[in-house]
């Protein structure tokens, strides 16, 4: 067993590093560190794909999930897989796709763990049809400071719904039951279209998203003026056998994604700048067909195009980047426009901006998705007025009844959390029950005061 290590950790954005004692996550390690936590507490970590400081614990212990993780059991009649929390979705897909099963929800990268997927209650391109990860979790087994707990929507539902979206602060997830999705092929049948501006895009999405299981739009965030918000919309479904060319297809369930490139480790800050962002946006838009129906694509190219380049986050250089993702109700499309307008006007370049329509939310106390428009923008830090603009956008989002995604956040002001997440006090009550001495701690929690009043008054 690899020994514990003292090292610096950051999230995917590579900002605000802090040091922690990193211990491989085993059931024994979880139990013993929760019992004897040291003064700065414990948090679990998956593959560190949250953008900010959610999986960091300065000066404390970080339990490293993927170190020893496996698929425990699979029931082919119900489709429920019992998984150790550290299992990466990448490993799960490699094991299950050839057998005809898919993950119920996948984010834009397959390098996240089941624990991270639960703790952030992640959503995918199918949110409008299938909801978020929580909707497919049958049970959880947790190590909490108050002892081991099993929970599900029926058994201790409060703990279950506090944990889905609870950012690791309700306990260390040891195991999850996840209902998988049966598929006939490892391919996607995809329609691609270009939208000329934001109104055109939103109209297309509102009209026809329901016809597809998966839908997402990539928005050009550099072009200003009349074509503001021009976009490429890709939507699709799992391909059936009949959709594949050259019937009978030789290996309809073959799945073997690989990374082709590795980004160099020493990129100077500022490679992603207004100029380069413009070129990338332009190229992406021009490359997309105006309209193309029924294209057959691999799972990897449809869901995880960025995973083709290992460590692509290094392209943002030493000072790193952040992602700003918010959701606002359907009648507040104007907020999406405002966000894009303000950021482009201030020349804060976004290389990636992703628009998505969310369906119904779930019972997760801190779960992010709610019905409406979700916009996610990757932004290099250190450009222009970014801090101020994002602070102002927070206000706009809050006033519209929206919220910012905690798994992506690395800079929000704590005062907004109770407004964005009105069930925060319910969540805190569950935390107080399973962790009365506040053993579970993370930098995210310290920064956003999620559990409130951490500091003793002087």
């Amino acid at each position, binding site marked *: 067993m690899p020994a514990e290590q003292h090292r610096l950790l950051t999230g995917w954005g590579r900002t*605000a590093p802090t040091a922690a004692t990193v211990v491989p996550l085993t059931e024994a390690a979880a139990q013993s560190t929760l019992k004897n936590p040291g003064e700065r507490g414990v948090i679990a970590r998956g593959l560190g794909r949250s953008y900010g400081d959610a999986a960091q614990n300065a000066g404390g212990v970080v339990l490293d999930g993927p170190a020893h993780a496996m698929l425990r059991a699979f029931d082919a009649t119900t489709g429920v897989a019992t998984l150790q929390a550290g299992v990466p979705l990448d490993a799960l897909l490699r094991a299950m796709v050839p057998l005809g099963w898919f993950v119920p929800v996948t984010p834009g990268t397959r390098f996240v763990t089941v624990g991270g997927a639960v703790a952030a209650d992640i959503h995918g391109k199918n949110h409008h049809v299938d909801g978020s990860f929580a909707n497919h979790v049958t049970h959880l087994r947790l190590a909490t400071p108050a002892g081991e707990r099993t929970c599900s929507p029926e058994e201790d539902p409060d703990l279950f719904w506090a944990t889905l979206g609870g950012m690791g602060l309700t306990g260390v997830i040891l195991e999850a039951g996840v209902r998988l999705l049966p598929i006939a092929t490892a391919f996607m049948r995809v329609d691609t279209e270009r939208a000329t501006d934001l109104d055109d895009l939103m109209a297309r999405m509102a009209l026809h998203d329901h016809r597809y299981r998966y839908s997402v739009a990539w928005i050009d965030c550099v072009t200003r003026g009349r074509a503001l918000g021009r976009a490429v919309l890709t939507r699709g479904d799992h391909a059936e056998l009949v959709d594949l060319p050259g019937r009978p297809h030789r290996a309809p369930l073959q799945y073997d994604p690989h990374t082709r490139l590795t980004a160099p480790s020493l990129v100077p800050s500022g490679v992603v700048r207004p100029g380069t962002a413009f070129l990338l946006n332009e190229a992406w838009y021009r490359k997309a067909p105006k309209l193309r129906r029924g294209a057959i694509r691999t799972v990897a190219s449809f869901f995880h195009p960025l995973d083709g380049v290992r460590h692509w986050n290094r392209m943002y250089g030493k000072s790193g980047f952040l992602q700003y993702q918010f959701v606002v109700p359907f009648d507040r499309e104007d907020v999406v426009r405002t966000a894009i307008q303000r950021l482009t006007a201030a020349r804060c370049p976004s290389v990636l901006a992703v628009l998505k329509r969310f369906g119904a939310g779930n019972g997760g106390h801190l779960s992010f998705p709610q019905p409406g428009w979700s916009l996610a923008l990757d932004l290099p830090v250190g450009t222009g007025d970014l801090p101020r603009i994002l602070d102002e956008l927070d206000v706009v989002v809050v006033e519209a009844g929206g919220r910012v995604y905690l798994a992506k956040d690395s800079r929000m002001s704590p005062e907004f959390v109770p407004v964005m997440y009105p069930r925060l006090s319910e969540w805190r009550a569950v935390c107080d029950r399973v962790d009365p001495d506040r053993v579970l701690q993370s930098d995210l929690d310290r920064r956003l005061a999620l559990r409130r009043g951490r500091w*003793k008054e002087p």
Partner: protein
Amino acid sequence: MRDALGAVQSVLVLGGSSDIGVAIAQKLARPRGASVVLAGRDAAALQAAAARVRGAGAGIVDTTAFDADDVDSHGELAQKLFAQRDYDVVVLAAGVLGDQAAAEADYREAVAVWRTNFLGCASIAMCVAQHLRRQGHGTLVVLSSVAAERVRRSNFVYGAAKAGLDGLAQGLGDSLVATGARVIVVRPGFVTTKMTQGRESVPFSSTPQAVADAVDNAIRRGSEIVWVPASLRLVMAVLRHVPRVVFRRLPL
């Protein structure tokens, strides 16, 4: 915690009534209404400083007693301060200018300058570093001086102490690599504050606000050494290589 864009939530100023220290606290506290603790000797001066920091949009502002010269108290003081909360930034701004002529006449004057500017500051810096290492994050900002880069005839007593402190701060910074904590060494030229009151302003002079802006920038960018104004870096790069025979005659 310091966030991805460099905004911080808690600041400790050692030498809490320092004009430069107050300006830094004001600048750092503004974006997130950070809580601030001002530590120093003169209670009334600290209260006045606290009011200025509050006025700039800080959250809770407290004051506490700290005497750089009383090194025996430093361990306990740091312990007490860090038991209450984490500090994202600690600013070490205590210092005296001293009287060069008096120090040349009476060595005890010189010792007093060194006691505060080197021994006292180095001592509290060591204590603070230990706590930053333990908490796994945080920035120690050490007010050195352009006088540290090359000690001058006209104020070598002060300059020697600053040179010592500057070296200590750099070594401490190196010792903290990969601990999550870090040290920023700040080397201002002449700054118009109560320390320099009544003295004639010289070329490359600046203001406490300019120092604060530079420190804020350094925290965001992760710089290790900051010159204020920035152009001093180049000036000193030249001056440090001027031969002694010439240097000692320069009107600096």
